[in-house]
């Protein structure tokens, strides 16, 4: 990120507890427009929780999330969608009994205030859902359901897009294809946060990564630099590998 770009999202000392379990323990990072930021870390390190708090599913227990410079912690999801935040889910959550087209129509009708909505057919075409447009979402395979999740999010014209393990379960050709799409979206000015376990994919698409462990960031920078960082190696591979 160039120093003069104002962050679209800043997360400051974010805390989220579930009973006695502290899922986020003072997490801080920021994301800029046009940037693809990776959130990586072992299971349970708080990646998905961070996305859930940013997208309004959970209210934070401490710290602050600011979008466009305004605090958004605890604001209902649908209002955040109208402001320009959207996401996909680790396990895709389409409206199963509705057709693919109807799934997207809900988001087109309710997802944004003012402005022209994106063209439905073009979106379906672009994400390879045109052939199944009139089938119920329940008939789709998991890769297609992931694309539907993504198209539903894109239909609301987000400026900040949170992708929770979009790549998991895609084959290499699909991975390559979706990576190019994500880069194109970012090139159009969208800020994209990617939670992912596939390091090759992360390396390929992100400008910067935040490494999380136990609910806080332990590294910020290029992935290539992260893998040389002793603390990161220790978290991922265990203490004996850290030189």
């Amino acid at each position, binding site marked *: 990120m160039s120093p003069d770009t104002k962050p679209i999202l800043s997360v400051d000392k974010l805390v989220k507890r579930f009973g006695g379990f502290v899922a986020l323990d003072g997490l801080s990072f920021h994301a800029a427009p046009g940037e693809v930021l990776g959130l990586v870390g072992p299971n349970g390190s708080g990646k998905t929780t961070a996305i859930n708090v940013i*997208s*309004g*599913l959970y209210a934070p227990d401490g710290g602050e999330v600011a979008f466009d410079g305004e605090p958004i912690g605890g604001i*209902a*999801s*649908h209002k955040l*969608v*109208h402001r320009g935040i*959207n*996401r996909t*889910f680790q396990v895709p*959550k*389409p*409206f*199963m*009994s*509705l057709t693919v087209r*109807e*799934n997207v*129509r*809900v*988001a087109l*009708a*309710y*997802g*944004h205030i003012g402005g022209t909505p994106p063209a439905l057919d073009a979106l379906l075409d672009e994400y390879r859902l045109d052939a199944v447009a009139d089938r119920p979402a329940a008939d789709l395979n998991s890769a297609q359901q992931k694309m539907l*999740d993504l198209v*539903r*999010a894109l*239909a*609301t014209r987000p400026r900040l897009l949170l992708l929770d393990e979009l790549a998991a379960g895609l084959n290499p050709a699909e991975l390559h294809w979706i990576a190019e799409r994500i880069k194109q979206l970012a090139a159009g000015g969208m800020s994209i946060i990617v939670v992912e376990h596939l390091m090759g994919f992360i390396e390929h698409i992100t400008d910067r990564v935040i490494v999380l462990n136990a609910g806080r960031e332990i590294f910020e920078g290029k992935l290539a630099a992260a893998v040389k960082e002793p603390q990161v190696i220790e978290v991922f591979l265990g203490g004996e590998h850290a030189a």
Partner: protein
Amino acid sequence: MPNAIKHVLFILVPLIAVFAVLPGLYQNHLLLFNFVTFLILAQGVNIIYGFTGYLPFGYVGFFGAGAYGFAVLVMHYQSPALVAVLAAGLVGVLLGLLLTPLLRLSGAYFAIANLAASLAVLHLVANPALEGITKGPYGVSLTGTFNPSHAYDAALVVLTLTVGGVVFLKNSSFGLALQAVREDSVSASMAGVNVVKMRIAAWLASALVAGLAGGIYAWYVSVFYPDNVFSGEFSIFAIVFALFGGVATISGPIIGVLILYGVYNLIGFTTPQYFQLIYGLLIMGLVLFLPAGLVSLATRRGWHVP
């Protein structure tokens, strides 16, 4: 031709036309009135269950509250019947508003809480201490407004509005958003849908429908007791009819009422001794073999059912 117009022309208009003409051809007007009442209630259940997934086991609470809203206005304020019917709808909506916290529950918990709420309203109305207002358990007699043929016409108007409302839900992005909420409320909110607002809107619409139907029922029968208008049969029948035909469609609940309530009366006239046996078997068969209703026979084959 847009689908909404098709649905009005080929479902709503014939339905209303048939029930407008039938009283001239068939003597048993009470039976026809009951058909219309159940058509309204089944569509009311369709609005809340079919489109949002909340199963209103205490749906009769709104119906009974509407009937008593009508009675109170007529008894104490000498209201004209039409005004009292509108008030009955309002009473339904107010009770719906009072019960909105129930929407925090889901599945069986909601159904049970709703059932309990309807019993609570029954026992409030039937409380002897409220005899001055509701006549308590002793029942009301509203001879001043007695006019079955006007009440029947009013029921047809409410049926028109209710089915018209379901046609709207079936053809609008509002109805689509309701179904989205039913399928996955988290995803619906990420599509920008205000989940709480949508659920309340459907809930109140459904309460309004039952309140109006209850008011018109009071108008039609004019003499009734709390146990009549709060009878659990209204809830059960409305739900079974709607499910038998298939919810989240316009035609499903209509088909359900026409067939099941038709069979119900047929058995009642011909072989009342086997009544519960036949009816019970029919409902068991439905649950086992057609859980998504009669319309699923068509949708399974990929045919679209409005």
